[in-house]
């Protein structure tokens, strides 16, 4: 172990939902760490608890049992509003269905998380421009989501996820709604971002995508069944020891 704790640690995490008196365990006793600069795929068939896991890593949900540490700090004790503030600064979400606000143009969508970081409109827009440039979408800054293709919308969504310089980008089936060529472009974008040191956790049920990530965490029926780090598929990263 190095002196600095892993970015995210899950320790015996379980999540049980109770609906109509019936308890359903979506995630059972899962433990793993995500280190700074990693790119990991969380794989598993639908219903395996991937989304529940992502909601917990993304501080949208809390484990019923076990603990989640973000940079060594237990998040369970944080209030709902504290977790929201932490989310604004530390987590960047990318969704399968993009989840852009239809009535705002691209640049405003990208700038949205900064509203909740208390940043002035001028700086928000300046940083949104940077972020859009980073994903190659600056030329679409004033287009509305309905005027953009799926791939373009997802790029805008990635720009939004990146704008607050989050500790981790959580992508839930980011290519699920895209054709394979566009999907490959988006994956290439994630790979490029990872090369700049961005930590990324990607949830997918597509083995083809998982193979492009160095590490694959497999879930089945809510349980962790495999945590494999494969030989490098992506070009070598230059990470300081």
């Amino acid at each position, binding site marked *: 172990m190095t002196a600095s704790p892993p970015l995210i640690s899950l320790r015996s995490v379980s999540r049980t939902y109770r609906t109509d008196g019936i308890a359903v365990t979506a995630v059972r006793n899962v433990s793993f760490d995500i280190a700074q600069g990693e790119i990991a795929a969380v794989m598993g068939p639908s219903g395996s608890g991937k989304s529940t896991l992502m*909601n917990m890593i*993304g501080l*949208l*949900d809390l484990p019923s049992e076990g603990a989640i540490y973000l940079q060594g700090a237990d998040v369970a004790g944080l209030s*709902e*509003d504290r977790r*929201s*503030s932490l*989310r*604004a*600064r530390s*987590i960047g*979400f990318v*969704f399968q269905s993009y*989840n852009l*606000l239809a*009535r*705002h143009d691209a640049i405003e969508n990208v700038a*949205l*998380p900064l*509203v*909740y*970081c*208390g940043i002035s*409109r001028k700086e928000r827009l300046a940083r949104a421009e940077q972020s859009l440039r980073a994903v190659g979408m600056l030329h679409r800054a004033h287009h509305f989501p309905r005027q953009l293709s799926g791939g373009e919308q997802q790029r805008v969504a990635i720009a*939004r996820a990146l704008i*607050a310089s989050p500790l981790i980008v959580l992508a839930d089936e980011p290519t699920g709604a895209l054709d394979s060529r566009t999907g490959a472009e988006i994956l290439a974008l994630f790979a490029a971002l990872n090369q700049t040191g961005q930590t990324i956790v990607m949830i997918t049920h597509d083995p083809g995508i998982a193979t492009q990530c160095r590490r694959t965490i497999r879930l089945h029926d809510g349980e962790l069944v495999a945590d494999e780090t494969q030989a490098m598929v992506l070009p070598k990263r230059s990470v300081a020891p």
Partner: protein
Amino acid sequence: MTMLQGFQIALHALRLNPLRSFLTMLGIVIGVASIVTVFAIGAGAQLRLQEQIRSIGANVLMITPGAAYQGGVRLKDGSKLTMTESDVQAILEQIPEIQAAAGSIAGTAQVIHESKNWNTTINGTTTAHFMVRDWQLAAGRYFSNAEEAGAGKVVILGNRVARELFTAGEDPIGAQIRIMKVPLEVVGVLDRKDPAQDDVAFVPLSTAKLRFLGSASNINRDSVAYIIAKVAGDGQMAGARSEIENLLRQRHRVPAGQEDDFKVQDPAAAMEAQQGAIRTVALLLVAIASVSLLVGGISIMNVMIVSVTERTREIGIRRALGGRMRDIRLQFLCEALVLCLLGGAIGVAGGVTLSMTVARMAGWITSIDGQAIALALVFSIATGLIFGFYPAHKASKLSPIEALKTE
């Protein structure tokens, strides 16, 4: 998220659907407009009454013949007026609370100055009349004793009459005017009072009796149409009134049990009672107008609840991107507030326009009161807060995970 950002988001959201936003705020618009209008009309009516009360003068009692009070028919029939100049003297001398008293007779006539003429009230009275009514001169002087005793051919003009007969810049003092072919010298012009009060020309009582009104209305040399008397202090009105009643009953030899042939009135008190009635009616109307504000608030709440449901996914996204529950609450509360404030502002503009239109078309006096406008705006803010709170609270309580799942 700051309040300002909340308002920016709210304005953005409301601009996207201008017709719906406008219809939503319509209830508030109507409510605020009616409150402002009712206030303006009520305040105008009170203002007019206060002006009338002021123009009568403070602590004034008015003594009129009983017969005249029952319709005035006997007066026209030539039946004799019941009050006399010696009654005036007796009141002044025998009742210590009375500071000043004056008898008057009045009629209407054409007053002529060169090419201009004007039909107005001719009031024959004494200088005491002006003392009773606290009526100052704008220029010139009051009647002299000699003029009062000797039917002097002098006149004091009410402000309106002076303006009708003389062009601006022309000095009425010393000018000759004619009333019923009698030439009179203008010795004074009175200060402005109420518009209705300014339309009068005063001549000495003796002049009126001898030269104009005496022969026309069969007045005996000593009688007057009414008496006004000034009481020294506020608290002495009731005492002075009953003393006058006793004195006049005695002087007019009214037997016990028979109706008085005169009537003592306190016009200011009567008007104050009227003012109270106006206030009550105005408050009632404001209460009715407030109901539409309530309905407006309910309509805002209704639309906001629908809007929260419609925008569940947006709420989920905002929560995922770091929006706190209180940020979401603030956002929707700001929307309700903006609706109400905008509605309130439009309502104030509408109310001001409406009351000005009413003032012009119906000829009523309306008074637009900053306080009423502030009150209406405070009401609309309160409406926004009260009726916006529940939808905003509901929005903030949505689970982000569930919200993100909705289509």
